[in-house]
Every structure is written in structure tokens, then in C-alpha cells.
């Protein structure tokens, strides 16, 4: 009887250990996406190349609830992930620009470097400047790059951490579009 108890204990501990090993430590939950919360509002300065079209300051609430928004946090020092996803985002923006708003937030970066990055990839979707990274904290961001999908009602649908590829982007776009 006692021997069985010991075996059971060892098996239980082994099972717990195995379960723990199966978990992905990079799988970080997003409170916003899990509870489908309304996207936190912010007002950020627009980077110079986009001011003619989008004005000096961009306020998110002016655009929420009109069409889905893809919010991408990036930095020029984030190599290679941000460099991998920039062409993917630009291509998708050119395809979906009538139906979805793509928004770049350059975070914890310096303006000259950010502008160099933008020029390198010829990014045409609006880019905002958040050197302190304050907006990232409001979104519960862990690190760049991170992409948030906001649906047509202004609620956070999903969060993707790390460089985003075309297939994943299309999958979320289909979810966000009616």
C-alpha cells in the first residue's frame, strides 16, 4: 500500500514536470486581447514624412470604430525581426489600405535612425513617434516588434509578438474584416 503511494507521488511529480516542460515560455498572454478590451487611446506626434497627410498629432480615438486598425510597434535597433516584417507590412498595407488602417509606432528610438529605417523600406503607412515607449506600456507590450489587431468596433482582437509573416497577417486580417 505504502509503495503504491510513493509510485503515485513520483508519477504525479513527473507529470507536473513534463507538463511544465511542454509550456512555451515565450507564450505571453495579452490581457487586452484575451478580454477583447477597447484599444487604449493615445495621441502621438506623427513623424515628419507623414505630416502632410496625417497632421502633426495622431489621436487613435479619431480613427477607432471606423475600420480595423493594425498597430505595429517597432524600433530601428530591433534587428533582424523588425527588418524582416517591414516589407510584409508595407505590402499588406498597399493591398488593404482602403479597408484597414495600418499604423506604425516607432518606440524607444531616435528620430534620425527611425527616419533612416522608414526610407530603407519605403514605408507609406503613417508612422508615429514614441521615444519613451509610454504607449507600449498601455498595450502591455513586452518588446518590439509587436503587432496588435483592432477590430472595426475598436476592440483589441489579437496580439502577435515577434516578426509577423504574411500568412499570419492575412489570417488576422480575415478575422478583423467583416
Amino acid at each position, binding site marked *: 500500500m505504502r509503495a503504491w503511494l510513493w509510485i503515485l507521488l513520483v508519477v504525479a511529480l513527473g507529470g507536473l514536470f513534463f507538463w511544465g516542460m511542454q509550456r512555451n515560455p515565450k507564450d505571453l498572454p495579452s490581457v487586452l486581447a484575451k478580454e477583447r478590451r477597447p484599444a487604449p487611446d493615445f495621441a502621438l506626434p506623427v513623424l515628419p514624412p507623414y505630416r502632410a497627410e496625417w497632421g502633426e498629432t495622431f489621436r487613435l480615438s479619431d480613427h477607432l470604430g471606423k475600420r480595423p486598425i493594425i498597430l505595429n510597434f517597432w524600433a530601428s535597433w530591433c534587428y533582424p525581426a523588425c527588418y524582416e516584417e517591414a516589407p510584409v507590412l508595407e505590402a499588406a498595407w498597399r493591398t488593404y489600405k482602403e479597408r484597414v488602417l495600418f499604423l506604425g509606432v516607432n518606440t524607444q528610438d531616435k528620430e534620425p535612425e527611425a527616419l533612416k529605417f522608414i526610407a530603407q523600406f519605403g514605408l507609406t503607412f503613417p508612422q508615429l513617434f514614441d521615444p519613451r515607449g509610454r504607449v*507600449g506600456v498601455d498595450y502591455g507590450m513586452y*518588446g518590439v516588434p509587436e503587432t496588435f489587431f483592432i477590430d472595426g468596433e475598436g476592440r483589441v482582437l489579437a496580439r502577435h509578438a515577434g516578426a509577423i509573416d504574411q500568412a499570419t497577417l492575412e489570417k488576422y486580417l480575415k478575422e478583423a474584416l467583416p
Partner: protein
Amino acid sequence: MRWVLFLALFFLPALGQEGPPPDLSPEVFRIARELRCPVCQGESAAESNSGVAVEMRRIIAEMLQEGKTEEEIKAFFVDRYGEWILYNPPRRGVTLWAWVLPAVALILLALGLFAYFRPKKVPKELLEEAERRLKEP
């Protein structure tokens, strides 16, 4: 004397590094120490120099200046990152086990040790037998 100097040589630089840089109050670092740095592994928001940890300290300082309490500041970060951001798991729900289990394990260990080392009663026949053999020439 030489030993004192020797020890001082080792520990004084460490003491010199204690305490936060002068621009933020120690209170900021005390709260930041209980919050996880989101981009680091095993570092609190007080120790890390990553951009997000620096920003977290700045937010804590601002909130303290606005007269927010420690609980309100922690709730602010939990609201955005979930309870994951807290270094100490909350004392309720599933994470209550993290607090209770060590105590339970200690009690079980104490009981086990007590049972193992408890003086055992020797049967009467054995005692008589031993005495009889001692008396034998």
C-alpha cells in the same frame, strides 16, 4: 587590521552601488523591485536598464507624484500586463498554493522525522531475554 582593510576593499564598492540614482526616489525602486521587467529574464523593473523598465520607473515616479498609492500603481501594471507582472504571486486562487505548499511540506517533513526518530517501545519479552542473557556467566 589588515583583514579589516581587506574586507573593506571588497565591500565598500558594493555599498557605493547601493541605492538608486539620485533622480528617482528610493520609493520608486522599492515598488519597481516588486514588478517584473517585461523584456528581461529574472530581472525586476528596478534592476533592468532596458527601455521599458526605465519607462516603468518613470511611470511609477509620476504616479507617486500624483499621490497614487503603491496598491494603485501595482493595479495599473496588473491591468495592462496581467498578474504575471507581479513578482510575488497573489495569495488567492491557484497561486495561493505557491504560498501554502512550502509550509505544508515543512509540516510533513517534521511529522516524518518525528515518526522516524521517536523512541520505540521495546517488547517486554525482549527486555527479559536481554536481562537473562546479561546475568548468564
